[in-house]
């Protein structure tokens, strides 16, 4: 299995939430997630708000200590003790370009920090050159280096965040909803930047988003999350064209179609009810209370991911095609 760049096995992240006096209930933000990412590949991770997408990304980087499960990078298991060695290989781009840049630092200090920390330069001149190169790489002017983050627009700030992540020349970047805080035209620019960088540098992405169109555009494969679990994972085109899990089917049917004639014909599959609280998970399949096809077995057993078609896995007892 070591040919994968990154392998995540049964990752769990439970946050203790105090629900009363001396009483703590685990909030199962991520509950047994497994997937692999190959070199230079983009895995899109979609799901509604609060389903644990961001937590998956941060737990992989050990920004949160995982409750259980393994993260294997290039054949080596990452533990809190040896994560320091992997900081150069794995990076993250954050959702909010406004809070992810320190307001008291100039752009050159923000991008230069990873260089400082990992001592990636031998002279001040080399540091400046690297910073200028990184700024050009993400489409910014190298004259911007002396400015502060608040002097930039949202899209420019996001580029600074990307440049910071690229500074250590990582092989893998967690993109934590990098475009959802930006408006549409800027989104396109940033996504193109991501694609260009992948072509140039062969970086693998875990691309977290809730916009299916964006994910479909950039990803090679897509994983759909619901309440801390992956319910469907497969090739991007396959998932979009032929979703098998009822949750994914409903998600896909909600994608707006720019052609009114097609849109009129298309049937929307509405979901009923609300997402259950992660503190009070339903028994069996977490999607059961909202599922149209739910049967008795769904309440008893939680389905695990099973191969439904080549390279296409779903977690459902009654897959509908």
């Amino acid at each position, binding site marked *: 299995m070591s040919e994968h760049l990154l392998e995540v096995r049964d990752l769990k992240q439970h946050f203790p939430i105090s629900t009363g006096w001396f009483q703590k209930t685990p909030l199962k933000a991520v509950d047994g997630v497994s997937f692999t990412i190959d070199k230079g590949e983009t895995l899109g991770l979609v799901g509604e708000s609060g389903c644990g997408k961001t937590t998956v990304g*941060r737990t992989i*980087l050990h*920004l949160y200590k995982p409750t259980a499960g393994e993260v294997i990078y290039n054949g080596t298991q990452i533990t809190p003790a040896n994560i*320091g060695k992997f*900081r*150069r290989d*794995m*990076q*993250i781009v*954050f*959702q*909010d370009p406004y*809070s*992810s*840049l*320190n*307001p*008291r*630092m*100039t752009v050159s200090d923000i991008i230069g*920090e*990873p260089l400082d*920390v*990992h001592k990636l330069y031998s002279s001040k001149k080399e540091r400046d050159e690297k910073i200028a190169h990184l700024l050009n790489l993400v489409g910014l002017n190298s*004259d911007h280096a*002396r*400015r*502060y983050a608040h*002097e930039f627009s949202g899209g420019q700030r996001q580029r600074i*965040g990307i440049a*910071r992540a690229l500074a*250590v020349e990582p092989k893998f970047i967690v993109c934590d909803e990098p475009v959802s805080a930006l408006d549409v035209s800027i989104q396109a620019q940033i996504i193109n930047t991501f694609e260009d960088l992948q072509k140039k540098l062969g970086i693998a992405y875990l691309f977290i988003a809730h916009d299916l169109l964006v994910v479909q555009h950039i990803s090679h494969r897509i994983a759909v999350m619901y309440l801390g679990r992956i319910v469907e994972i497969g090739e991007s085109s396959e998932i979009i064209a032929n979703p098998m899990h009822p949750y994914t089917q409903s998600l896909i049917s909600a994608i707006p179609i720019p052609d009114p004639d097609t849109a009129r014909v298309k049937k929307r599959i509405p979901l009923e009810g609300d997402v259950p609280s992660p503190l009070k998970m339903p028994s069996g399949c977490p999607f059961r209370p909202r599922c149209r096809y739910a049967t008795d077995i769904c309440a008893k057993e939680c389905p695990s991911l099973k191969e439904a078609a080549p390279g296409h896995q779903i977690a459902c007892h009654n897959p509908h095609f």
Partner: protein
Amino acid sequence: MKEFNTDKLPKKQILSMQIDLSQFEAATDEEKTQHEKMRESTTFFKDGMRRLFKNPLAVISIIVLMILVATIVIVPEIYPYSYSQMIEVNGKRDKTAKNLAPFEYSKNELKAIEQGQEIFPHIFGTDELCRDYFIRVVYGTRVSLIVGLFASLIVLVIGLLYGSIAGYCGGKVDLVMMRIVDIIYSLPDTLMVILLSVVLNQVIGTALQGTFIARIGTNMVSLFAVFGLLYWVSMARLVRGQILSIKNNEYVLAARAIGTKPSRIIAKHILPNCMSVIFISVALQIPSAIFTESFLSFIGLGVQAPMPSLGSLANAARGGMQAYPHKMVFPALFICLIVLSFNLLGDGLRDAFDPKLRR
């Protein structure tokens, strides 16, 4: 750049709203570069200073403090009288120069003036031991300011270290450290200050005998120790609160993802972002330290005689308050000036650097 050929454009209809491109002129290269001029980048600090200097009260208090500092630095160098010596006329101690009013000369001095000698006037008069009162007030101010600054510095250092460790580590470390703070906080501080300075005076006094610190006065040292032991708690709480709120920002998470060490994260990311709040509270801490020092000196636990402090001067003046009210007024006036200036400066700093706190 695409060139527009105005001839090829469709002809403008009379009622059309179409913009007539032939009336536009292409920008020259020089005009284009005019727009590329980059605004000078302003830092948070520059911006805050600009706001500070717009506040008249803050500017006045800065000027007052600068005059005070200049006075306590320069005057002892050039002033003809000493704070601990009786006034001398022709090399003899002048015992008639007791409790003089401002700008009054003693009998011996008047004789000397008649003989053609020039004698520097006693601006604030003299005290009951025939010492010039102005130089004593200046020295008292010096002591009070030094105590205020150093005490605040000690409070800052201890509070900053303690608060940042508690805030950054969080969890059980935070819990234990903050309960210790709560315990110290709940002690009646005036009582503790008095007890501590009495005890420390004896302990430190014997330990420091003969060293150069003894020359500063053991009372002074114990004063600093009292501040160090008691007054850092509110600073530690403040710093911890700031760090807790800044710690969860995504840029701190980003720094952790890069692999930055916690010490560097605190120093580079967290502290610069709460510095303004901390400095403001230091500026407001100084007057309270001066107050405490004056109060301790007033009840006789402050600096050692003959070294004056504003508090001990006021205490000494208490006895003859009805006969010589000026001896009470001058030190009191200086305490007011210092405390008021620092308070106003602190308020100005807060308004300038922490606009969120302003109401």
